[in-house]
């Protein structure tokens, strides 16, 4: 588990960090880049929406999949975007879903804040 400041400037470091872990796990280039983008999106959300000062990344490789968790200490902000009012956006979560096999978002509660985004990516052909 590694912690980064919840700032936009951390995103490049986080991508380097994930690329390094993927290299150790010998993931193919394409799998790696999908995962790097998905994690970058989850972290960008923690930066923009969580109000948390830091965010944590946990990497859990398995035999045929890797699970990667992005955690912050903020409150998930449920909202429905209106295109005419909010402008273009709302791409992050659908992108994560398209780039990985599973996205689970655990919202905290007002008493126990903290959002956890768990991404699962298959690392072998199904």
């Amino acid at each position, binding site marked *: 588990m590694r912690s980064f400041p919840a700032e936009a400037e951390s995103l*490049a470091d986080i991508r380097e960090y994930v690329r390094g872990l993927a290299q150790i796990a010998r993931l193919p280039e394409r799998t790696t*880049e999908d995962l*790097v*983008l998905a994690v*970058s999106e989850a972290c*960008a959300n923690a930066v923009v929406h969580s109000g948390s000062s830091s965010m944590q990344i946990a990497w859990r490789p398995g035999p045929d999949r890797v699970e990667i968790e992005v955690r912050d200490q903020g409150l998930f902000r449920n909202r429905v975007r209106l295109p005419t009012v909010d402008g*273009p956006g709302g791409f992050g979560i659908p*992108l994560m879903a398209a780039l990985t096999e599973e996205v689970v978002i655990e919202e905290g509660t007002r008493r126990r804040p903290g959002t956890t985004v768990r991404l699962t990516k298959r690392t072998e052909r199904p």
Partner: protein
Amino acid sequence: MVALTVEAVEQPRGLRLTGELDLARVNEVDAALKPLVAEGGEITMDVEELRFIDSSAIQLLIRALQGLEGRGRIVLRRPGTGVKRLIDVMGLDRIENLEIRE
């Protein structure tokens, strides 16, 4: 800090982006793109050396394309693997005034 370079290009008129473009640097591209969008016409973004982009860059692109509607278009020139992947996943080739030029 992401290594990103934003260069103005005269011929064809537009920008050349090099490095990685994410939330941390998207404002710079926004600032460079704004006057071009205000003028209208065809804007060429040379993205051959852009290794990474995230959805905040796409958000910016779509806002620019909305601003150009009926008055101009954007050409994404020579997208590499990273940019191409995002184009495919999001189906950006469905946007009328955006041309993906290999």
